[in-house]
């Protein structure tokens, strides 16, 4: 019953779009006889990258809108549940940024924070990844270490601050220790997870190609776990920054977290926002680094 109606409808409407298309089409699409003029290439490039361009454009607009809202809220000192009376404006923050990049002290804060992240995170990766691999392969090691790890894991790194100060002789060491702890557990847990998901058929395939225990570990278990290891490293890097900033605010003398806290004590409101933005940019940069390293190490995963 509805069949013929539908059919007639489509037949009727078919010429309409065809006519509509016939008009503009020759104007937009150049004839195929001139294939590689700059215009066609640009057009083709645009068509292939349309989705990416769109995302970039929207992203930039959204950032600009954020700045604009921030600017309006602070210039009109809006008080609506939240008080923007003392919040620095984007322009004020920019001014303090231009001043800070010439200030060796500010740069030293940043360098010190980066160094702490580098040492703490590297230690977490150096200890966490092999430990996870070994725990995933040898049941006894898993059975011994896993319960302890599960009890320690939920303790936030900030709660370790007093203990860390007692454990380590210098302030610097305790801050690095807290950064290490923050990233250690995500790295360990994800590596373990990766090991548990290794396809047993691949292990069997390696075995009947003559691989022994050590080769299977190196050629199958390790590469198979790499995607999860890198997930762990990315998450671990995020938590490392969280832990570092908390530790610096509480017990530090230098570092970008300390800088931010000090700005509050010294009533340098623009510097508070500058510190926060610096932390955000550094965190973003470090996770981009890890993602890049992941693509280098796992070429089979890149499209």
């Amino acid at each position, binding site marked *: 019953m509805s069949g013929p109606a539908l059919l007639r409808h489509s037949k009727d409407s078919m010429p309409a779009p065809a006519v509509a298309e016939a008009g503009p089409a020759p104007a937009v699409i150049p004839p195929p006889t001139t294939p590689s003029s700059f215009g066609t290439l640009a057009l083709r490039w645009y068509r292939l990258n349309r989705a990416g361009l769109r995302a970039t454009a929207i992203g930039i607009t959204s950032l600009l809108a954020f700045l604009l809202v921030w600017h309006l809220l602070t210039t009109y000192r809006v008080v609506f549940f939240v008080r923007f009376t003392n919040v620095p404006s984007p322009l004020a923050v920019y001014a303090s940024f231009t001043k800070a990049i010439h200030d060796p002290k500010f740069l030293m804060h940043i360098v010190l924070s980066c160094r702490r992240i580098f040492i703490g995170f590297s230690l977490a990766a150096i200890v966490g990844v092999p430990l996870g691999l070994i725990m995933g392969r040898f049941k006894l090691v898993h059975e011994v270490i896993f319960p302890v790890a599960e009890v320690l894991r939920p303790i936030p790194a900030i709660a370790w601050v007093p203990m860390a100060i007692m454990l380590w002789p210098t302030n610097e060491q305790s801050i690095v220790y807290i950064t290490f702890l923050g990233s250690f557990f995500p790295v360990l847990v994800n590596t373990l997870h990766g090991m548990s998901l290794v*396809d047993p*058929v*691949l292990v*069997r*395939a*390696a*075995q*009947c*190609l*003559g*691989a*022994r225990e050590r*080769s299977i570990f190196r*050629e*199958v278990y390790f*590469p*198979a776990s*790499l995607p999860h290891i890198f997930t762990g490293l990315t998450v671990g890097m995020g938590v490392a920054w969280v832990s570092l900033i908390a530790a610096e605010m509480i017990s530090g003398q230098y570092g970008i977290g300390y800088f931010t806290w000090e700005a509050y004590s010294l009533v340098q409101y623009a510097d508070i926002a500058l510190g926060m933005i610096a932390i955000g940019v550094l965190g973003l940069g470090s996770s981009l680094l890890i993602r890049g390293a992941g693509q280098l190490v*796992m*070429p*089979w995963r890149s499209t």
Partner: protein
Amino acid sequence: MSEVLASPPKGHIEVKNFSLAYETIEGAVQAVTDTQIHVKPGEFVSIVGPSGCGKSTLLNAVAGFLKPTTGIVTVDGERVNGPSAERGMVFQQYSLFPWKTVRENVEFGLKMRGMPRSQRERAARTLLGLAGLEAFEKHYPEKLSGGMKQRVGIVRALATGPKVLLLDEPFGALDAQTRVIMQQILTNMWQRLKISVLFVTHDIDEAIFLSDRVYCMTARPGSIKAEIPIPLERPRQQSMMMSSEFLALRRGLMSLIREESLKAMGGEINDMGMQGLSIELHGHSLADVI
């Protein structure tokens, strides 16, 4: 090429008084009982049977992944104690290493044997050439079609020059056209290498087309129901599948398997009969009945 591929025709598989049981909480579950099979050097033998009959279990025991509960598995008189490169295996899920390129996959067995890099690269290229895959040596497996993946799987298993090749439903995941081509490729390689092959499948046509001999297994607990020699002459062509000889073999095997499949599916279907099912559906769509 000759250094990799030329091996004297050997690889005599012998499975005697074989049974295998799994331990469960309710007690031992018999997967395979009282089974004897053998593959003569250079012979192509298939095992067919209803799903779950233990044909893969049997193959995995020959590969060395499973230990028989009773009985013994030997290859050239040597007892099988665990997996080894002497028994190459091809899996249904291809099981190529995704982090290795096609060539690195093929090289894997040679690398494990400690062959120097340049030498194993050359060997892998030769083998890939035989399988028509040299253009893809640098690709990662993910980029290949199913048929190509399985060609790599077969070449990888053959690279170490094993005495026997074990295949566990290797073409089960491929479409019909690809499957036929793969059967042809496998036959060619087998004839060239004169290697013994033990091939597990549930596809009767495939088993007849490829094999010198077919073992038909019973429903679980699996044992050998029949041993059928396939006297079709070689080289075999696609067109043979229409010959009366082929069809007669097919009919025979089909009825053997059908009996066992019905047994495996349980009593209800037997009681009700297949007609019962079709009558209920007659004139209605499946959705209406449900």
